[in-house]
């Protein structure tokens, strides 16, 4: 089974697009959660249940939006590619490894697209499950910052560019989100 999946992965080159979605949507998830938490922090929300529920439902919504959008887009794009290939091969590709690989890639890419923002949100709000609300806010912002740096480093590894610089660029977006919220809402 694993060998089959690896083969499908190679045929569709899904790793490239899944990686792109993973970084893009994890970034979305982290930034959205930062915005949400900053809003609640400035509004003085101290009820852990409200913070967790709001963040999680937002994470679920972003995840669902990512999954849905990516799945429909991937299916449409891959169908088009398959039809073009059928023309070139002068045959129907139904029930072939190529068709199965295409369907597999659409599902995996959509899952990555949907799960990455949701997981990011869960990781950022983890402190609210364990420590006092005010400490959890600070720790959640720190975790979010570290995640942004981590995503930048991952991006740097993929593109073989300066990992620290990319990490800092990602972090800058988080700081900007916090800064703008603070200036506008405080």
């Amino acid at each position, binding site marked *: 089974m694993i060998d089959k999946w690896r083969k499908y992965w190679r*045929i569709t*080159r899904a790793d490239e697009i899944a990686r792109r979605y993973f970084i893009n949507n994890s970034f979305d998830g982290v930034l959205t959660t930062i915005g949400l938490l900053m809003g609640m922090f400035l509004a003085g929300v101290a009820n852990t249940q409200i913070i967790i529920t709001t963040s999680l439902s937002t994470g679920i919504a972003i995840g669902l939006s990512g999954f849905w959008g990516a799945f429909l887009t991937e299916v449409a794009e891959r169908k088009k590619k398959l039809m073009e*290939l059928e023309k070139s*091969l002068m045959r129907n590709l139904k029930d072939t490894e*190529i*068709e199965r690989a295409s369907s597999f890639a659409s599902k995996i890419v959509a899952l990555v697209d949907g799960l990455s923002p949701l997981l990011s949100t869960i990781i950022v709000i983890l402190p609210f499950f364990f420590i006092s609300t005010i400490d959890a806010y600070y720790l959640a912002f720190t975790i979010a910052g570290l995640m942004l740096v981590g995503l930048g480093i991952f991006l740097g590894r993929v593109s073989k560019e300066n990992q620290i610089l990319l990490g800092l660029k990602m972090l800058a977006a988080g700081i900007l989100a916090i800064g703008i919220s603070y200036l506008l809402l405080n």
Partner: protein
Amino acid sequence: MTGIRRLVLDVLKPGDLSLVDMAADLGKLKNVQGVDIVVKDVDRRVEKVRITVEGDDLDYSTIKKRIEDDGASIQSVDRVSSGKEIIDKACL
């Protein structure tokens, strides 16, 4: 041994399907002892390859099915060898 011992096929395959996967899939078939795939032509989406399969008592329909299940199509059967001995210098 009797039956088909060597098949040379002209195949059109999707460009995204790797030769390694294709050769490995064919190599796993019953009675197949050797597989050789050579790229003859490369297009934007497809590749024309020549597949040589050697073994004992090869089953053409199983090989055809395997190739087609991978999404490729056999354009022509260019050479078939059978019998107790493979004639390498056969006149074409």
